[in-house]
């Protein structure tokens, strides 16, 4: 299967059954971002269609359009060939479409059973909600996906994997013809993933159409019958999965050869700057010890929910560890707050950009200078000229694209927002920079820029910690990698030991020999 140019009409799939659901020329624009431009998608009964594309390609946006959460700006949705609209989430589920969304959209304070059935709870006499039936049916569904979760339990008390299983159970509680799964396995353990695969087979056998979104190629090839590729909001192509190989698929996704993504770099590793000894937290992580040298990029790998972010935030002073010592340049430092961390030269680029990274309602220059106001101000009084100077210096180094420096950060694209956050920290001239999922959800061009820049920082002698869930990124960027699982460090790898297999094995806790 060859890559199609964007203007070409998609090739017709070799199918004799018509699709249950199809999208035609769907367009969706957000302020500043064209998330989808005239994409097509076809879902066939009894078949699994894998939707692949880089972060930000528009996959989740399609899911939200199919489930009535977003309204498309143009194009048609067809069910059994009839054009239709989903003005509300209810309309979509009434049409037999159900989805496991990428973010878990559940209610922490409600019970598991209710999370599964909210909106379509079983009714008993007088139309009142029948709790007993709800819990019974929840139990059945949970059992069918191999989950041992008490339906009466409060969702808040579950771990991330269990929550994901609840989300899956919720999707199955609706008797649907189309089941959408947006990265359903990202947070699941090996065993749970196997059970999910069995479930998908079962659904297929029932004649349901399944849309399966994943970044994991092994599972796409394992489970999908068809594929559709998006890139930067464009439809690139579709076809039967057994007619492509991994390399071709990646090329369609990325639009160029994969080898060029990561910058070539030579490490100049210097003296130790940071040493963490015995960091413990009552519920989130335990016994974390490692060291970090100047000019080094240290990767932290793990499955989502492995506790990496939690630990990094503790290092940055957001939460307090119950035990543990940090040494910077050999001296013990106490970090009680982010302000302390910054004063000690440790800065953190969080993974949740919108909430933790940038203050989206404030202009770019104010975001950049926020931690450096001490430098730009005089006796506590603002000096705008100095602020613009500082902001200009660092945003230009990062090649930021924006209309002006007093544009609100919220109006920027994801990649440019990330640049503002990084610029903010570089302006403080840190010694250690922690990047948590630095390229999550940013477009391919910016991604390369961030990688290049990361390499440049390391070359200048900065110590870099990079938390990433993407194996290529860990392999391509880090000098050394630490793998975390369930809140603990399970391995530290470098050189030839650093292979996709070892990463996956340690992260998933699979014993030697077994593979996914």
């Amino acid at each position, binding site marked *: 299967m060859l890559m199609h140019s964007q203007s070409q009409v998609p090739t017709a799939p070799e199918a004799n059954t018509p699709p249950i659901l199809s999208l035609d020329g769907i367009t969706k624009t957000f302020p500043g971002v064209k998330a989808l431009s005239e994409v097509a998608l076809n879902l066939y009964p009894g078949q699994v269609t894998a939707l692949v594309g880089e972060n930000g390609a528009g996959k989740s946006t399609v899911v939200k359009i199919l489930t009535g959460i977003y309204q498309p700006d143009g194009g048609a949705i067809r069910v059994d060939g009839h054009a239709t609209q989903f003005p509300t989430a209810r309309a979509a589920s009434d049409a037999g479409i159900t989805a496991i969304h990428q973010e878990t959209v559940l209610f922490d304070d409600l019970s598991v059973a209710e999370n599964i059935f909210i909106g379509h709870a079983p009714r008993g006499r007088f139309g009142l909600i029948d709790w007993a039936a709800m819990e019974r049916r929840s139990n059945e569904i949970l059992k069918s996906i191999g989950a041992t979760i008490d339906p009466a339990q409060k969702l808040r008390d579950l771990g991330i994997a269990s929550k994901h299983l609840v989300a899956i159970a919720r999707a199955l509680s609706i008797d649907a013809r189309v089941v959408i799964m947006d990265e359903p396995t990202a947070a699941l353990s090996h065993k749970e993933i196997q059970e999910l695969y069995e479930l998908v087979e079962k659904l297929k056998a029932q004649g349901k159409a399944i849309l399966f979104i994943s970044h994991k190629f092994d599972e796409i090839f394992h489970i999908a019958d068809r594929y559709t590729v998006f890139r930067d909001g464009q439809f690139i192509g579709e076809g039967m999965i057994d007619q492509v190989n991994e390399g071709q698929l990646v090329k369609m996704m990325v639009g160029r050869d994969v080898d060029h993504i990561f910058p070539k770099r030579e490490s100049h590793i210097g003296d130790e700057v940071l040493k963490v000894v015995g960091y413990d937290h009552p519920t989130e992580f335990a016994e974390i010890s490692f060291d970090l040298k100047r000019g080094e990029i240290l990767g932290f790998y793990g499955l989502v929910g492995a506790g990496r972010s939690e630990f990094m935030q503790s290092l940055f002073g*957001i939460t307090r560890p119950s035990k543990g010592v940090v040494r910077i340049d050999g001296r013990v430092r106490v970090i009680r707050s982010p*302000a302390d961390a910054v004063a000690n030269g440790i800065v953190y680029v969080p993974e949740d950009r919108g909430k933790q990274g940038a203050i989206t309602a404030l202009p770019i220059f104010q975001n950049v200078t926020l931690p450096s106001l001490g430098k730009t101000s005089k006796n506590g*009084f603002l000096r705008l000229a100095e602020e613009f100077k500082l902001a200009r210096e660092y945003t230009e180094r990062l090649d930021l694209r924006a209309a002006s420096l007093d544009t609100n950060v919220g109006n920027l694209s994801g990649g440019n927002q990330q640049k503002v956050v990084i610029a903010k920290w570089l302006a403080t001239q840190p010694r250690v920079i922690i990047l948590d999922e630095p390229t999550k959800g940013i477009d391919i061009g910016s991604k390369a820029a961030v990688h290049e820049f990361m390499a440049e920082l390391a070359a200048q002698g900065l110590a870099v910690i990079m938390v990433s869930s993407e194996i290529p990124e860990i392999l391509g960027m880090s000098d050394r990698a630490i793998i975390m699982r369930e809140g603990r460090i399970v391995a530290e790898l470098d050189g030839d030991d650093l292979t996709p297999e070892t990463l996956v094995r340690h992260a998933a806790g699979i014993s030697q020999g077994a593979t996914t």
Partner: protein
Amino acid sequence: MTTPANAIPDRLQTPWESRLKSWEALLLLVAIAIFIANSFASPYFLNAWNLSDATFNFTEKAMIAFAMALLIISGEIDLSVAAIIALASTAMGAAVQAGAGTPVLILVGLGTGLLCGAFNGVLVTRMGLPSIVVTIGTMSLFRGISYIVLGDQAYRGYPSDFAFFGQGYVWWVISFEFVLFAIIAVIYFVILHKTNFGRSVYAIGNNPTGALFSGIRVNRVKFILFLLTGLMAGIAAICLTSRLGSTRPSIAFGWELEVVTMVVLGGVNILGGSGTIPGVVIAAFVIGLVTFGLGLLNVPGIVMSIVVGALLIGVIALPRLWSQWRQR
């Protein structure tokens, strides 16, 4: 990779129409309209002494409103301000009984305000409790202490030089309170719009998590804001006590909502993150002019409050209705 090819301008030109559409401009227009309407409605309105008297209707509340504005911009609220006035006034009254002179009274008033503010601040920042609930509680507690101390009694007998703060004139019709109000307005303008502290208040109000992750000491800033609000309530207590010449536990009853109304009418977002001091200043004048103008016509206070309530909702609702209507 540092390619300065794409120079980003500092600012884009702000078209003057959009400035005219700002909240402050709208409010100023309302204020001017009310002023003109008042001058036609009552022959007594355009009189220097009368206008000067009118300022007493809002100066004390406005002093608190400035600190409250900062607090609300930061995403918190303090409903106990009126109760702090009662407690501070009671403390001053007790000091008078103990034979304190004016300088000590001032210290007692300010000190009580600061203490109350610190108490709120500790509950909110240390214990992480929601400020709206905490201050509903301390509102009863502070005033309750006044009632316990005073019961059905009143403190009076304030020294004669103490009367200056609420009754004195600095020059011609310019009262001391008005001058104090103006000075405090300028100070808060500078704090909010010209200092690092003010910048962090906005940052916290827009996104407390983001501010914390940017190395701002969020809790410290919030604590200071509670202290400032307490302090302003203390200052207001001094002025009001001096103006009344006596202390009863029911003093300044219900002022908290009037202060919040002033702040919100001034364009401060009750959910935090935006608002300006000039807006609050204009709102103070609007409320003062409305109440005074209607007062001259002997309209009962409660009818004035309909006007203020309608302004509060109307000024927010009308632009939204307008834009919804235009989108049709």
